[in-house]
């Protein structure tokens, strides 16, 4: 089976700073992969490049065999690659239903005749059913993340990119959201790429980890191997050891 996503030598420089350095990896259909790395490792920059929000300085991105590196974000979405944002960005002044409806009007969703029914169905699917008319302004963080996922699902993606979906959530909320993501992966036949900077959330969820540090991919493998990888350990707890040693 051919690769769904093929990232080859992607590099991003901001002036003198290299945020992403020669990143290459592939995703197969049905993969559940996580990108791991401490803050500032270049994970979100990589996401922005993949989804067309930022042009890479060098490198290529193929999605379903098609070069997507020079496409606008909405075009990437319409090829079947949808994303959520780390800082959720709902449409202020609209209710939950309207927020999802916007995405139901994208070209990939055009097969849905009754867009409102579809939006309602999506809200129910992410656990926000029956709350159509609620304004987004008062929504707690966990629900905003669900709303983001519903909006991404509306575009009927093959690949879903989730940018730190668990950030700022309590442990019970994390567990519920993880269950939702797992279910989507299983039932909707979605390929999922997820960013996280905490090791713990990963272990139970993903089947493969891409570890990044200082903009570079330092290791790829299943979670139980990654936690034993020396480079990963160094990136995560190396500093702590140093400080112990000097103390």
């Amino acid at each position, binding site marked *: 089976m051919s690769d769904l996503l093929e990232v080859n030598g992607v590099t991003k420089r901001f002036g003198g700073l290299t945020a992403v350095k020669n990143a290459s990896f592939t995703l197969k259909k049905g993969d559940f992969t996580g990108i791991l790395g401490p803050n500032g490792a270049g994970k979100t920059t990589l996401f922005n490049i993949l*989804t067309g*929000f930022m042009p890479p300085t060098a490198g290529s991105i193929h999605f379903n065999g098609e070069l997507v590196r020079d496409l*606008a974000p*909405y075009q990437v979405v319409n090829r079947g690659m949808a994303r959520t944002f780390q800082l959720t*960005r709902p449409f202020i002044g609209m209710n939950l239903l309207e927020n999802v409806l916007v*995405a139901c*009007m994208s070209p990939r969703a055009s097969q849905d005749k009754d867009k*409102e029914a579809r939006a309602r169905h999506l809200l129910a699917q992410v656990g926000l059913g029956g709350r159509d008319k609620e304004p987004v302004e008062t929504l707690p963080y966990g629900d905003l993340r669900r709303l983001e996922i519903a909006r991404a699902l509306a575009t009927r993606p093959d690949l879903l990119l989730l940018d730190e979906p668990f950030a700022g959530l309590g442990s019970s909320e994390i567990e519920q959201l993880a269950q939702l993501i797992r279910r989507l992966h299983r039932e909707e036949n979605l390929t999922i790429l997820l960013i996280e900077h905490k090791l713990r959330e990963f272990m139970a969820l993903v089947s493969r980890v891409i570890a990044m540090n200082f903009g570079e991919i330092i290791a790829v493998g299943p979670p139980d191997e990654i936690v034993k990888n020396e480079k990963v350990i160094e990136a995560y707890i190396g500093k702590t050891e140093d400080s112990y040693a000097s103390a």
Partner: protein
Amino acid sequence: MRQLSLIDIAGGLVVIAILALAPVLISSNYLTGVLTVCVIYGIWAASWDFMSGLTGRENFGHSLFIGTGAYTAGFLSSIWTANPWYSLPLGVVVAVAFSILVGFPTLRLRGPYFALAMLSTSAILQRLCLIFWEYTGGEEGIYGLDPLMKTPLYYYWFALGILAVTVIVLTLLARSHWGLLLRAIRGDEATCQAAGINVTFYKIVSLMISAGFAGLGGALYAHYQLQVSPPLFSVVVSITVIIMVYVGGIGSIYGAAVAAILLTLLTEMLRGFGEYRLWIYTLTLMMILFFLPNGLIAPLWRRMTERLR
């Protein structure tokens, strides 16, 4: 979607009935003339509100579309002596062409490029009318357009009908899924992109719609005045329209139309103040900016009818 409630429809019918009957009850050519101008300003304000009010991309040169619509009518009817009924559709076409010319390069960009480009283009076009006076008649403009109707009263009813159609079409569009997208663009363009929406396309098409109605209003105005002149392109016309929308309550369409009618009437009443008129206007604008940031007409209507919904 936000459906039109019965009370909104009833309110609209009452306003249209009052406007239609006013010149019959008070038979005065002066009043009919003033009301015609009121109604045309209503078309301009509603058309501004559709694009800029919904998407939040401020058009500071609506007079560009008004002026091109009016001058198209001027050239056609007076210089090329075409059938005056060609003015309206061709006024729309030319205004839409200009909207593509300015909108396409600027609406792709972030930042205030669109506002600046619209303002500059309208101001430059006003200058060009003066510079190429051999063709445009310079300061005097173009005279001797043919009237569309036999009597001013018929023409007023015709213009009122067009205003009604404009408001109905734009309101339905604004409350449709299309309008929802435009409001989403106002909210967050990045999120729209993430939702797979071609933001630039929607902005350009809504500018074209906005320009079309503005050009239609411009051509109507030309056939009311039976003359066109460079001030139609002026920044003052654009800002007057924006003030009207602001007073009406941005994004409501009907509020803009009602505010346009009321403010034009008010301007007529202030005629006695002569050169202080624009001052009063400007001060009103400042007061509204500071004390009524959501406008007056639409919020008032919503509060009045809240219990009836």
